[in-house]
């Protein structure tokens, strides 16, 4: 059930499991719990469910569309009577009032009410600054929800022309965040991952992501090269000239104690997927993948990598050193070739820097909060628990729901006996 923008304590079953994050893992956990008869409160900070998968163009190892299974899962969540979906909302704290665990949920309502918007476009026509957008610039889209216009906060000067033009009065430019406290029983975190951004400790500045448009992260590149843009040939992000040489640099900050000390488990395959899609569309493109250990452990993944190799993707076992803009030469890459140990340099038109993926924090999850006798049981699934790909996130989400439901049942039967 979707309750997009209103939430109050009385609407929430106090036996609910709170799931934080509506990506594949969170959605599957929610659907599983609901199927087992457990009420769920699913809190998602974005405008729709689906999480990072909705930003993917294709998924390995099948090379099929990512969004088709994701959006239908989202639709099932919206429609389930036992799942209360709250969008535009974040968990900001966990506490107890002595008997009941309370979750503090902050709702950040958008100025255009998605529940009322007809998507007729009158606001966009009226806006003098072109600040009203039809598409979400970050996420792709969610066909499970009616479309809604959105306002780009950076461009909007709150002149109010859009609100006047709206035929159904769906726009309130003065809307403020609201925080409500709702009762919950247990918490499952499924907050997923984020790419390290410049300035964050996980981000390795020497690999240049964020410093130049043609040095991009994996997700930036996904949005750039994806089929959703409908471009035949790859062009640079900086000036739109055709790309002839592109490099994928793996472990650029990951498996590095200074930045991201672990392996994010999915980047090798993700880079390979992007490389193969590029090669398929543009066979003359020169594609090189610089890797440390090429990790393709899952079902069908080794065959996938082999196929890429056969298709002509150059694989170089190496340790990356530096990625930097090199003027007319494009983007320079310095690396240490692992076979010879020698330091080498090459130039590319575009470089995709895979700096690992950072596990998202678990808001409100403090040792103190989980220690008290009345504190809710907290579990985590998906990438925030352990780096996983889509298949792993699905399995983890369902398995974590199983653990929560089993614990719930045994607690209830103990309570029943007493």
């Amino acid at each position, binding site marked *: 059930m979707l309750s997009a923008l209103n939430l109050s304590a009385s609407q929430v079953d106090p036996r609910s499991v709170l799931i934080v994050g509506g990506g594949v893992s969170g959605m599957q956990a929610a*659907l*599983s719990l609901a*199927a*087992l008869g457990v009420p769920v409160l699913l809190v998602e900070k974005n405008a729709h469910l689906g999480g990072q998968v909705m930003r993917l163009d294709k*998924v*390995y190892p*099948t090379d099929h569309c*990512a969004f088709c*299974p*994701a959006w239908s*899962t989202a639709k*099932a969540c919206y429609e389930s009577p036992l799942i209360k979906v709250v969008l535009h909302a974040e968990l900001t704290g966990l506490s107890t009032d002595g008997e009941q665990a309370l979750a503090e949920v902050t709702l950040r309502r958008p100025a255009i009410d998605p529940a009322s918007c*007809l*998507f*007729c476009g*009158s606001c966009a026509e009226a806006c003098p600054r072109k600040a009203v957008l039809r598409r979400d610039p970050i996420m792709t889209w969610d*066909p*499970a929800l*009616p*479309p809604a216009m959105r306002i780009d906060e950076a461009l909007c000067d709150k002149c109010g022309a859009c609100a006047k033009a709206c035929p*159904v009065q769906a726009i309130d430019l003065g809307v403020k965040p609201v925080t409500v406290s709702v009762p919950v029983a247990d918490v499952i975190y499924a907050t997923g991952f984020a790419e390290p951004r410049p300035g964050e400790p996980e981000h390795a500045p020497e690999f240049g992501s964020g410093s130049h448009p043609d040095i991009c992260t994996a997700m930036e590149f996904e949005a750039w090269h994806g089929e959703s843009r409908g471009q035949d040939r790859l062009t640079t992000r900086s000036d739109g000239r055709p790309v002839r040489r592109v490099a994928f640099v793996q472990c650029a900050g990951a*498996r590095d104690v200074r930045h991201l*000390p*672990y*392996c*994010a*488990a*999915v980047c090798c395959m993700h880079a390979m997927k992007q490389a193969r899609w590029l090669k398929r569309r543009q066979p003359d493109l020169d594609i090189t993948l610089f890797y440390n*250990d*090429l*990790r393709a*452990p*899952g*079902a069908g*993944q*080794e*065959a996938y990598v082999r196929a890429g190799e056969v298709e002509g993707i150059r694989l170089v*076992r190496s340790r990356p050193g530096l990625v930097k803009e090199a003027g007319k030469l494009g983007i320079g890459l310095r690396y240490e*070739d*692992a*076979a*010879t*140990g020698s330091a080498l340099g090459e130039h590319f038109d575009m470089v995709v820097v895979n700096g690992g993926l950072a*596990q998202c924090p678990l808001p409100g999850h403090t040792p103190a909060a989980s220690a008290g006798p009345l504190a809710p049981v907290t579990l985590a699934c998906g990438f925030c628990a*352990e*780096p*996983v790909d*889509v*298949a792993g996130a*699905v*399995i*983890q*989400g*369902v*398995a974590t*729901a*199983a653990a929560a439901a*089993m614990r719930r*049942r*045994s607690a209830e039967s103990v309570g029943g006996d007493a």
Partner: protein
Amino acid sequence: MKYCLYCTCMGTLASSLKEEALRSALGPAVALKAVDRLCDNAACRKALEGMAFGPADTVVAAACSKGSRGAQALACLRSAAPGVRAELADIREACVWPGSKDSAGVAAQAADLVRMGFARLESAAPAEACPASGKGVLVAGAGPAGMAAASALAALGVPVTLAERRTSLGGMLNQLGTLFPRMESASSVKAALPLDGADVLLGTEVRGIVREKGGWSVELRSGAESKRASFGAVILALGGRPVLPGGKMRSGELKGVVSQMELDALLTAVEQGRKSADLLPADAVFVQCVNARDEEHNYCSALCCPTAVKNALRLVALKPEATVTVLNRQMVMPGVALEALYRKAMQSGVRFLHVDDMNALAVEGEGNVRAVRLPASAGAPEEVLKADMLVCSTPVAPAPASVELAEGLGLRMDAMRFIRGHEPAHPLESDAEGVFLCGSVRWPAFVDQAVEQGRAAAVMAARFLRENRMPMDEMPEEGPAASIRTALCSGCGRCVQACPHGACRLGEDGKSAVEAELCRRCGACAAVCPCKAAVLPGVPSTREILAALGVVAPTKRRLS
């Protein structure tokens, strides 16, 4: 009477598609009314003021697409006029918005879309409910995955039967001492999977799984005895089969050349004090990817690297003066926990050496293994590693029993004969309705993954029994299942072969029948049936195609 309600989306469509233009394109057969909006209950009631619909009347809402607010418009319409036979024609996203400047073309297109809506109404049939099956779950195989599945199902109160070919529970848990990545003991994991409430059949082989009404009929063979039992869902947890070194690295010829499993057993025995630490090697060389990632086993099992790291750590913990060298093509240690384990091994003095091709290694020794010679490579000269034990890491292959069952069920397998799930979004769901996969039947899984997958498969099976559809089928088509008009059916069986979900079957009368609870409304049966005996409401009907082309459907005539 045919009514068309043209929703102008608060007037925003009115300039591109004029009411009059649509009316003249539709002709006199359809009564057209333009309204402000339909996707709001109050507005819809207002729009319908003064209108009354009889049972013979049909209404098409010419509005936006179903995914926009069309579904809502239809719901409002049905609540404002209960019992009305109404359909949606998407004239906003599919016609006005992408439309050209050619307003006559837009009107003609809109009129056809409206007529197609009427055609759909004419060929629609009433919905029917699917009954629940109410049977239990069979878990085949009692390794970690199967035990986890059965344990979870029992804890969730779902009737479950666990069948194991061997006479003991646990599978690989009985052979492994310590498990990565948390280095806990296998027996503690086994103990954490209680089977209270599950029906456990040891020494029982699962054979011949065949579909029956409302589930699966399974032959359970115990010794010479064989019986059939019925289940609503089946979880395949038959595990894998470790590939043996098979003469590679002079195994079987030289003493001291062992498999990773044999080392595991030795370490466990020493840890438990059953064997002396003197038996442990002083200089161990681990060789990864033996019989793996080659032509025969063209894949990475992904659990040999962590196993090697685990055993290297155990070895240096038991015998700190021992040297351990792991020869690898690359270390596959993805994730937080495994990377930490890898790092710990490096800090403990375990040496990791990259070798491109394991076949280029020369194993030296007579009677006992003495050394391993590494060929020179671009970056390093030739090197000879002293070794009194050479440990081969080999991959995991599918178990013959799982291949046999999969073949019987017609499940897809990959080139290596692992059973395929619907990767990546529904990895544990097989092609057969109600058959789930976990553990190494789908891909080599280590104990943690197997337990996780077992639990997940258990919940999937419970979801299947409760909701009567595969969990991956989150967006079931509304409306009734396909059906066979028996009088027209020739019993040719084309639909049986074409149905991707095994819902069509030939009955005793030689005619096909659709099992409604298995039907997922794809319409493949209707597409292949030459006698038009198989029908699925919603598959574009003749009427709809004729309406799309602006052809007035003639009355049905038969010649013969």
